């Protein structure tokens, strides 16, 4: 259980170094994507480069004030819903870090190995704490079509964590260990 404070984007060498149970605090750019956003990004032209950002399974609560959008609360959503998309998503966008909660399935686990990426878990429901680590809302895409929770939001985050490495790039999953306890 090593604690790392890291900047995005990550290199393949960095990604390979992280092991299940490690704790990360990340700084850099992340984009949110839930079910509809995954579908949209896989089927439409994407107006930004996701490869140097972290993918965040999140449908944030946002507020528009005079100066623009601000994050009110932004914890993770249940990742297993994105299992049906994630291997294709990793192949297309070469994302090196997925942030979510609750874990993902075998297809994602294989894809993480194949495309050298990791899945990290952020504490579900800790939305106020997460919002506190967002420095800036960079942009939003498909807001009108998909609505606030499903839209793709780009955030600049600082020391975002604790993120628990739950599925690493070597085929290990913390959830397999937990399943064995049963």
């Amino acid at each position, binding site marked *: 259980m090593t604690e790392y404070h890291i900047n995005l984007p990550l290199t393949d060498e960095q990604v390979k170094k992280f092991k299940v149970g490690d704790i990360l605090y990340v700084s850099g750019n992340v984009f949110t994507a839930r079910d509809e956003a995954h579908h949209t990004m896989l089927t439409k032209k994407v107006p930004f480069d996701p490869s140097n950002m972290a993918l965040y399974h999140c449908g944030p609560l946002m507020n528009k004030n005079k100066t623009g959008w601000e994050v009110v*609360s932004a914890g993770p959503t249940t990742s297993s819903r994105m299992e049906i998309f994630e291997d294709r998503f990793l192949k297309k966008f070469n994302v090196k870090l997925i942030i979510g*909660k*609750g874990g993902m399935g075998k297809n994602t686990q294989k894809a993480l190995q194949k495309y050298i990426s990791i899945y990290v878990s952020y504490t579900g429901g800790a939305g*106020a704490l997460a919002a506190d680590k967002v420095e800036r809302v960079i942009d939003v895409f498909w807001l009108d079509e998909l609505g606030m929770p499903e839209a793709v939001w780009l955030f600049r985050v600082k020391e975002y964590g604790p993120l628990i490495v739950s599925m690493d790039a070597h085929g290990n999953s913390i*959830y397999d260990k937990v399943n064995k306890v049963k």
Partner: protein
Amino acid sequence: MSKRDVVDGIVDLIRKAEIELPYDVIKALKKSYKTEQGVAKTQIEAILKNIDLAKKSKRPMCQDTGIQTFFIEVGIDFPEINTIKKIIEDGVKKATKEIPLRPNTMDPFTGENHNDNTGNHIPYITWDFTEGSDVKIISFPKGGGSENMSKLGMLKPGVGIEGVKDFVVEEVIKAAGQPCPPTVIGVGIGGGADLSLKLGKKALLRPVGIRNKNKSIAKIEEELIKRINASGIGPMGLGGKTTVLDVHVEKAHRHPASLPVGIAVQCWADRRAKMIIHKDFSWEVK
């Protein structure tokens, strides 16, 4: 007091539910923090920090501000019972802007969202009637991630209570980290399909740590807590001792041929707040 002021009361009620977790839940989480180690401890620590920050910064503790759900007990001598529903709806719309709340109600066919947390049957209100002239309202904003783990079992009566217990333990273990454990589980046994689920959900209104008054049911609750926590799923499914903060069981009489078991799942953010409206429309939020 005017009805307009009562709408503000509803906003206050929802705000309290979304921002301040009841003390019984915080107490259970603090107890869990003492017993957990390693990764599990980091999760409970983040939850406790989050609860603190939400209260201090007056923002919803979770971005999923839920489906606005209310349990109302109407005193039959309250003078204008027919105004209550509208007051709740107006309060939800106002709260969506003021707190704010995430626009969480969409048409299942068209995806249309009014962006005010209202729609067909929503806010979802359960009505009950009682003596007196006060209206008691419980706000119970219900998140989607935990709701997705709800289960209905129409068991064969022959499996008995042992079969009921096994069903509950298996289903909660199957849900693993998905409903944001440590969770609170409400189990309704008996009645019909709908009643068992309703009883399960109503069981979640009971504070964490309070056992069923019926001693044999209380014993079953204790056994379920022990068995589920022995699974090792732990906070957020990352391994640990606390998978549930509590299990609440309620019963209804059943048809001889049916043994319905309704499981309602609540994440650690077991959000609840209470309000009383008096007959002169003065109110208090607790």
